[in-house]
């Protein structure tokens, strides 16, 4: 069980939350877990054994390059994190509005009305 497998597991835990929870806030938590699991997946596919962070410094000259992890997934995930924040914020605003109209966050009751 390495982080790649674990991230897939986490993905489906998040999906479970989205599908089965009745509370809207809990659904959003599930969505956040989904997002987090993809971040974990990307970061773990870029990892190299004994790799260091991809930041050069004065001491590291061109010939003595140590093993560095892949910078691309990290840069991609910076973007994905911001998107996750935006979607979560938007969902919370929608929830506030829905609660104001219906006075409930339970999806079963919302479906009845």
């Amino acid at each position, binding site marked *: 069980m390495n982080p790649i497998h674990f991230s897939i597991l986490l993905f489906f835990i998040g999906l479970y939350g989205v599908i089965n929870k009745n509370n809207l806030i809990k659904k959003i938590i599930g969505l956040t877990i989904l997002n987090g699991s993809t971040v974990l997946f990307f970061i773990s596919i870029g990892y190299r054994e004994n790799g260091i962070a991809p*930041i*050069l410094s004065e001491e590291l000259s061109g010939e003595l390059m140590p093993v560095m992890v892949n910078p691309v997934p990290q840069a991609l995930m*910076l973007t994905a*994190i*911001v998107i996750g924040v935006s979607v979560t*914020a938007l969902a919370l*605003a929608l929830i*506030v509005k829905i609660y*104001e109209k219906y006075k409930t966050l339970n999806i079963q009751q919302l479906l009845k009305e």
Partner: protein
Amino acid sequence: MKSSNIIKTIAQKLFPFITLFGIYLILNGHLSPGGGFQGGVVLGTAVILLFLSYGIEATEQKVKMRCLSILEEAIILFFIFLGILGISTGYFFLKNFLPLGRAGQILSAGFMPLLNLVIGIKVAAGIFGIFYILFKYRGEI
């Protein structure tokens, strides 16, 4: 919402340090771990800290929401303008058209510090804006 003097004092004393740390993260984004987004979040949370300890009225006097939203719009337009400058200087859209400079200095790597600054301000304004609007609306329910 009333907060005690301890919280107010601590928040006031902490605020410059957090802000400084955020600015450090933004300016050193291309040299060390950090960058526009991370520094922006730190800056945003610094303002949120003041906001939480002093209450909504005191912050509203200092930060005008309308100015904040115009700032955000202007900043995105500035970002696109930087991209179009890449075209007008004869390269491609969003080309790093400034000289790269000597590696390891703050003013190096072309337009990267500038972009970090742009993203930092944008993220700080965005995070604070989201928090502020959600917080302010709470009274209506």
